[in-house]
């Protein structure tokens, strides 16, 4: 079970006093993938991450990170895992390259300094003091420090919170670079677009429980969301000169006609047959939209008590 998993979590529970914040969660993160823990504030994402990073011991359940128990072997784990925490300061008077080089000295097999600067796009500011860096540059410096030991696994706790769009894009590019380097990445975020853009697989955590897990499409399918097919309403249909297609729940909304289906291929075939039979051509503006993570998330949120 854990042979293919960089991270294995089973029945994880965590209580602070009488309050249980994790109610027995299970998930695996495979080697080389970007896995995202998605959920609103207070869902338990950071608590889960702190347990996986070895900062906190769980109340119950089994946790394995790179084959180690993080609570029992934190020092060994930190030689192989890089961590970008939610909020973390720097020695402000240190220079960028100097600080990264110091961090490299902590590890047995560090990445070359030049590589690190290149991966996080900080080569141009290598001699700048940390206090003079922008917020986005500091976050990328965070990444560089997390990568200094050439880790097999990188934890990223809400890496783009508070960023402007440009800084977010550059941060995403840095995470894409991690993927290209073959790193396993465990990411937490409450931004749906971020999860959709970056993650190979996601788990939606809500109130200390994993509600759904899988790829974006798997999650949407499990949430029972349908694919949306739309096209420009033909004038003949708008005037009532042709009948509505049988077996399809098509709604005509003025200039646009829309239907939702669980079997996009079959519905598409039926629509095109109907159009041909009624001489409607190729259906202008035909678009097939798979359910987005946002739809899934909103549906889940709506359904929850």
């Amino acid at each position: 079970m854990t042979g293919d998993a960089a991270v294995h979590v089973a029945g994880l529970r965590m209580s602070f006093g009488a309050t249980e914040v994790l109610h027995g969660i299970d998930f695996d993160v495979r080697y080389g993938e970007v896995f995202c823990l998605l959920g609103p504030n207070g869902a338990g994402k950071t608590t889960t991450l702190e347990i996986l990073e070895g900062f906190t011991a769980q109340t119950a359940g089994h946790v394995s990170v790179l084959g180690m128990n993080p609570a029992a072997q934190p020092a060994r784990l930190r030689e192989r895992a890089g961590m970008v925490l939610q909020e973390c300061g720097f020695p402000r008077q240190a220079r960028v390259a100097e600080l990264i080089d110091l961090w490299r000295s902590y590890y047995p097999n560090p990445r070359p300094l030049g590589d690190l600067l290149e991966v996080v796009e900080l080569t141009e500011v290598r001699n700048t003091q940390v206090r003079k860096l922008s917020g986005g540059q500091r976050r990328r410096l965070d990444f560089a420090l997390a990568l200094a030991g050439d880790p097999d696994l990188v934890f990223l706790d809400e890496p783009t919170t508070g960023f402007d769009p440009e800084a977010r894009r550059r941060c995403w590019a840095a995470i894409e670079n991690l993927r290209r380097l073959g790193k396993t990445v465990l990411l937490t975020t409450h931004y749906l677009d971020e999860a959709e853009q970056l993650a190979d697989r996601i788990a939606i955590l809500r109130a200390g429980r994993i509600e759904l897990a899988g790829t974006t499409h798997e999650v949407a399918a499990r949430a029972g969301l349908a694919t949306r097919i739309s096209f420009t309403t033909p004038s003949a249909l708008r005037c009532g000169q042709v009948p509505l297609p049988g077996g399809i729940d098509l709604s005509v909304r003025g200039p646009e006609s829309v239907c939702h289906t669980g079997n996009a291929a079959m519905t598409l075939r039926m629509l095109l047959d109907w159009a041909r039979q009624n001489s409607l051509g190729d259906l202008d503006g035909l678009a097939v939209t798979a359910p987005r993570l946002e739809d899934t998330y909103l549906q889940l949120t709506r359904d929850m008590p």
Partner: protein
Amino acid sequence: MTRTIRLAARQALLEQRSFWRSAEYALFTFAFPLMILLLIGAANAGSHLPGTDIKRTTVFVPGILAFGVIVAAYVNLGSKVAVLRHDGVLKRIRTTPLPSGAYIGGLLVSTVATVVFITMATGMIGWLAFGAAPRPGELLALAVGLVLGTVCFATLGLAISSVITSAESAGPVAYASFPADRDHLGRVRSHLQRAAGLAVAAGGHVPGEGARRGAAERLRGAALPGLEPGQPRPVDGRRRRFRRLAVPLARFVTEAAGLLDPVRNRRAEFHGPRDRAQPVM
């Protein structure tokens, strides 16, 4: 062990570079005691302590030396660690495999280096401007006193950092805690004054101590143990002097070891728990 020492040295180097790059930090740690020395020393040049033939500057210069030690090792280190915690730097360190001993060692080595610079500058100015120079035979005692005093106050600085809850209150709490620590400092001081003349003068700078007179007497007592002011200095064998130094030194080390308790308690903050012997897998 070698790795820990190497990492501590690198950490100390970064700390020193950061120290000198922060103009106001360096100014108030390094230049402030020197400014006080020049201003007050100049105002008191040529005058003597009441009822003695001791020049005020003879007491004042080592007093400023001790003041520099306290500012660098106690106030600055204590408030610095509190700020590092507040800013999350200590948490960041915990994400790495850096041994806590290397990190704390680096901070302490950097503090000692700062103290050495302050001492050299203060001693040089005290000598050139006011003619206050240590006796050649007491240089070793001076050096030992400086090192032990630095370790002692740095340890207290690390301890006081644990009660500072915010970066904003770091400086005020570190300064205001001098009177609160008076009794403890007094005991440390009593060991230091036997070990080295320098540390004795620190007593004169602890509030509420009746300062100058007591400091002058202790300074004389350390330099000329067992003698009243005005009595000639006896000829003493090296071995005997060493024995006289060694006993209080041993007591001081014991004292310092006791002071390390709060530091040991802070270890978890600098670093997470060490790996347990058996892997749980």
